[in-house]
């Protein structure tokens, strides 16, 4: 753990060398998600609700997803740019070192500019919490925390899966964006609004709805089933197959030789 923080501070210092570029990128990251927010806002200035979800409720959902995603993108960035590690041959360097390879991939890249997105998420949460009409009893607070943690685990699992697949093919990888970037982009609304088929897909195949939609029902009081709070923890279960694919990929990995 101490080593991890050492790496973090090194990477932070590294990125802080280019202050103007760093600041502009942070502002840019903020703007990107801010325009998405404006899109939602404009929709709700025309329509009062969507599938009985109100604007503050959707904002709450959006901010939880965005928060989980931006934290993941910041700290699990190494897996996001993993194909480059393979291409450049840096993976070989990682494999010969006497340390866990997951740890090393994690520390190979941390993107602090994602703070811009995180800021947007925090602002939306601060706005939505008082106006959402939810009575903030301890169980609701726990729900939000569990949702964010579950979300981080789910998105991390998807990034690990992405890295795992890149051992086998580089060409088809763009498809994975539907689940990572798409999960963030479409997760701004509870998955139920896209219809039953989509909800089922995000429940059983890519289980993003487990941290987003189901506990959200409990949070907004649309369901009284307290068991829904713990569904996001299924992210840890989802991590198992994703990690196995990654492990399998590493086992049969042959260097690119560069």
């Amino acid at each position, binding site marked *: 753990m101490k080593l991890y923080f050492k790496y973090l501070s090194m990477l932070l210092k590294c990125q802080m060398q280019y202050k103007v570029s760093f600041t502009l990128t942070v502002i*840019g*990251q903020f703007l*990107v998600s801010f*325009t998405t927010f404006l899109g939602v806002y*404009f929709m709700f200035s025309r329509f009062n609700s969507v599938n009985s979800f109100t604007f503050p409720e959707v904002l709450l959902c959006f901010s939880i997803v965005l928060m989980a995603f931006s934290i993941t993108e910041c700290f699990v960035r190494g897996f996001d740019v993993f194909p480059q590690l393979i291409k450049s041959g840096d993976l070989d360097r990682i494999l010969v070192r006497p340390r866990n390879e997951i740890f090393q991939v994690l520390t190979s890249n941390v993107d602090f500019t994602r703070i811009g997105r995180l800021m947007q998420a925090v602002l939306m949460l601060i706005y939505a919490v008082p106006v959402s009409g939810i009575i903030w009893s301890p169980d609701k607070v726990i729900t939000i925390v569990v949702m964010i943690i579950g979300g981080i685990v789910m998105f991390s699992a998807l990034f690990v899966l992405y890295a795992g697949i890149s051992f086998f093919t580089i060409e*088809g990888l763009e498809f994975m964006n539907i689940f990572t970037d798409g999960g963030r982009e*479409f997760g701004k*609304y509870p998955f139920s*609004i896209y219809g039953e088929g989509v909800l089922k897909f995000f429940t059983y195949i890519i289980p993003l709805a487990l941290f987003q939609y189901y506990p959200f029902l409990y949070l907004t009081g649309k369901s009284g089933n307290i068991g829904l709070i713990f569904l996001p923890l299924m992210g840890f279960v989802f991590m198992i197959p994703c990690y196995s694919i990654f492990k399998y990929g590493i086992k049969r990995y042959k260097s690119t030789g560069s």
Partner: protein
Amino acid sequence: MRKYISFFKIRFIEGMQYRAAAWAGIATQFAWGGMNLLMFWAFYQNGENSFPMTFPELSNYIWMQQAFLAMFMAWFFDNEIFDGIMSGNIAYELCRPIDLYNMWFVKNMAIRLSRMILRCMPILIVAALLPYPFNLTLPSNTLNGVSFLVSIFLGFLVLIAFSMLIYISAFYTLSPKGIRILSTSVIEFFAGAVIPLPFFPETLQPIMYALPFASMQNTPFLIYTGYITGFEVMRSMLLQVTWLIILLTSGKLLMKHALKKVVVQGG
């Protein structure tokens, strides 16, 4: 002229090589368009009367947007140009008896067009086969259909003319990352890539339509869907031409100024 055509050809053929990647891209765009439509469908069912377009019009808009994404995606830049400026390789380009602005312009056209051609047909065909009201239909009348073809080309040129300004800005900043991401989000939003411009609040719309960003993908797609007709079509196309001239002239002038004081990086 001939040299620019051959630049175009080189880049175009290069772009046509990535076929497997194109299939993944098609699947991604298809899912993206579908999810977007389902999202709008949910809103549509909650308040049909507040919907600024008819639903079939929106379906047409979304599918055209996905099919021609490669022409209008604002986040795409030719990294060779940025690398050239930062590494100093630009010096070689300057030695050639060609106009740098025109060459970059043609290169950008070629890359985007080759990607579009690889991707558009499968999306158009599958989208046309979807059930009503999610399907893609033919334009409402011939006049709109013909105007669309002219307008999409104009919009394409406006987008590239605008992104040229960002390439040129790299001469001044030498670190284009921040400006790239800033300009990308601004273009995407005001061009109607996040939500179509008719969904913007009414008070903002006159300003939105006057900005150069509306002359990119917004105008041709709205013409195709039949959201704007008759005299409005002519007027918005005239606006496209105006912006194109303004952007081209300012781009050329800026380039001249930048090249006068260019510092070649590295040795």
